[in-house]
């Protein structure tokens, strides 16, 4: 059989339909598609894809199982390296990781590794009812701060090595950014709940509504008998642009907008948490979070959604697939534009006018790309006198986050860098003995899989330290 130069296309919901619902966009490979796609893998000797994976999944091995229709075998291979395969199969930027290294990719499209991972994980979750076996206790206790991707990964690896693990979560639901940040249409919450359940079956204990740094301190976690602590508390504070009008009603940080919709379920009719819906929406930023916010606004009923980004499409940092999906759904990209002011309604004759203080528009200025900066990205420069107004009712600011100071300010001897990120060595160990950290709390906003990689590194270091 001749090799298909293209990977099997992912079946998706029709853009016109999905723009109005919160069901998952990508529907997943069928059994037949998955086996056919697996057969495209050359099973090459040097396995470059494995190096491209932050948690080093033995990719050719799981694909080999799949070729022989041994799906559970494939799952077992993935599960050795990843605690969250159904999540990673959906949200990993495979095109810049494993798939970017694929030998097949030199001449053709690479193997659809992410899609295969998702197929295997979904098949396992649908067909395998056996609960994972608890490992005999090694008598050691570890506390984990935050139940996002780094914390869940670290918890999983430690539990599998016999540690008694307790995960503390500040919010009322486990999952961190996987539940408050990433929307349902990209990562159904039932999948996150399923992964958390698997960890519970392994003996991991979860304590929600516990803000470490407030409810309990790191020192108290040690006093309670924990011998190591892993901090995976996430990035935290949303950045604003510091332009006039950012406090008008209708201006949200992406964190707030997405949390209202995802965690608090504002998209449902029967929900107590309000969110501004409909009208015209401007989303500022070009990352995955900006795409998520724009597509959420659309599904909440917006008549028009703009993405305002200060560089061009080439520099746009969001995953290509997300950008394509957004475009298909009708999101309008205002590229090489930067907001300079958010405009609001003001009735000079009636201070009690209910419309006062609500957003009416976003003034943007045209940009052009100048000289490359230190990172090699061409710096956007404003074009003088080119301002114009985009009429809108809501503005969502998705320009990144800064680390949360809650843990740093309540933990003596925990050193942070100039940006507030916790300083760690190559094992994820902080300046405090037996305190490890990873994920966005260390790096600032990054990807789910890099946080998982950090959780894995720290888990290994903790396991080794008790040998």
């Amino acid at each position: 059989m001749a090799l298909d130069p293209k990977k099997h296309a992912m079946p998706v919901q029709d853009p016109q339909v999905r723009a109005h619902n919160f069901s998952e966009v990508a529907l997943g490979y069928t059994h037949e598609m998955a086996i056919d796609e697996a057969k495209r893998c050359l099973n090459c000797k040097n396995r470059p894809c494995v190096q491209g994976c932050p948690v080093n999944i033995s990719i050719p091995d799981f694909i080999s199982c799949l070729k022989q229709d041994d799906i559970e075998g494939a799952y077992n291979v993935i599960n050795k390296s990843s605690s969250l395969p159904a999540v990673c199969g959906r949200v990993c930027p495979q095109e810049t990781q494993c798939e970017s290294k694929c030998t097949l990719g030199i001449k053709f499209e690479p193997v659809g590794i992410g899609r295969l991972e998702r197929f295997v994980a979904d098949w396992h979750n649908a067909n395998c009812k056996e609960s994972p076996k608890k490992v005999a206790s090694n008598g050691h206790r570890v506390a984990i701060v935050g139940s996002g991707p780094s914390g869940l990964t670290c918890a999983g690896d430690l539990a599998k090595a016999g540690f008694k693990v307790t995960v503390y979560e500040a919010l009322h639901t486990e999952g961190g950014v996987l539940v408050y940040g990433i929307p349902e249409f990209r990562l159904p919450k039932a999948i996150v709940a399923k992964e958390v359940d698997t960890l519970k079956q392994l003996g991991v204990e979860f304590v929600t509504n516990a803000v470490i740094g407030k409810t309990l301190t790191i020192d108290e976690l040690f006093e309670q008998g924990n011998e190591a602590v892993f901090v995976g508390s996430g990035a935290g504070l949303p950045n604003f642009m510091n332009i006039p009008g950012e406090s008008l009603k209708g201006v949200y940080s992406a964190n707030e907008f997405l949390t209202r919709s995802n965690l608090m379920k504002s998209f449902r009719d029967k929900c107590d948490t309000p969110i501004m819906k409909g009208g015209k929406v401007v989303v500022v930023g070009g990352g995955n979070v900006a795409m998520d916010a724009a597509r959420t606004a659309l599904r909440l009923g917006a008549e028009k959604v703009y993405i305002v980004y200060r560089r061009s499409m080439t520099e746009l940092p969001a995953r290509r697939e997300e950008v394509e999906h957004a475009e298909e759904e009708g999101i309008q990209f205002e590229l090489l534009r930067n907001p300079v002011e958010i405009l609001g309604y003001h009735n000079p004759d009636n201070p009690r006018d209910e419309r006062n203080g609500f957003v009416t528009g976003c003034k943007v200025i045209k940009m052009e790309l100048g000289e490359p900066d230190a990172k090699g990205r061409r710096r956007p420069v404003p074009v003088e006198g080119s301002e114009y107004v985009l009429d809108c009712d809501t503005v969502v600011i998705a320009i990144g986050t800064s680390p949360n100071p809650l843990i740093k300010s309540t933990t003596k001897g925990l050193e942070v860098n100039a940006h507030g990120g916790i300083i760690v060595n190559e094992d994820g160990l902080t300046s405090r003995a037996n305190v490890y950290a990873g994920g966005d709390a260390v790096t600032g906003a990054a990807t789910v899989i890099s946080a998982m990689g950090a959780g894995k590194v720290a888990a290994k270091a903790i396991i080794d330290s008790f040998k």
Partner: protein
Amino acid sequence: MYKILSRKELNPTVTQLEIEAPLVANKAKAGQFIILRVDEDGERIPLTVAGTDKKTGAVKIIFQIVGATTEKLNHKKAGESIQDFVGPLGKATEIAGKKRVCIIGGGVGCAIALPVAQAFKEQGTEVVSIIGFRSKDLLILEDEFRAASSKLVVMTDDGSYARQGNVTVPLKEMLEAGEKFDEIITIGPLIMMKFVTLAAKPFGVPVTASMNPIMIDGTGMCGGCRLTLTEDGKRVTKFACVDGPDFNAYEIDFDEAMSRSRMYFPFERKAHEEICNLYKNA
């Protein structure tokens, strides 16, 4: 789930609950707040801690029925439970080193002002309290304030009890008569705190206001609680949940805070009506 240990109606619109939350009771100090959810579909609302009992693990909260969530909360009985309860959040009120302070509470804000007054009294600070209400029906915690203060002035807007007028009237009188305070702490409606600040300004007394904006997580993540302050002539954004809830009142943009507090008024009105109808028909 968090058990309701006791329930008491302080007036027709204000209810006090004690919630079993030992970790919070163990840590909470005057001025800090909690976030709760009544049920699975509920919204997260911040409420300032009105008192704690470390022995029983109880955290006291006092709330006014203003919307759907507080209406639902008000229908919970002692022995029942609420879904979520997390805290203590925010920074505690700074009480150290003050010899004489004036506490000014308005309406349900008095519930939060009381533990602050008590904390000051406990460390030997002389407390003068001014508490204001719209009318006699809405008066709460008068005896408790009297016990915590060397002097207490009660005001009602309509004159139905004690002295008629708003809280700035006796404050101005005291300041004009030459009374000295190391600090004025004001907790209540934004409009009241704004005018307390304006009244105190000519006398150069430091004023601290306790802010209670809309928020979701309470840990600095959502930014919904942001306020604009003017620090050294520069406008800066602060998050009430992690930087506050107490701020130097002279720096706060109260007009902006008032506008932001009304962001969901139409939504809240509708939701409250729906919930009320639900209870009426039940």
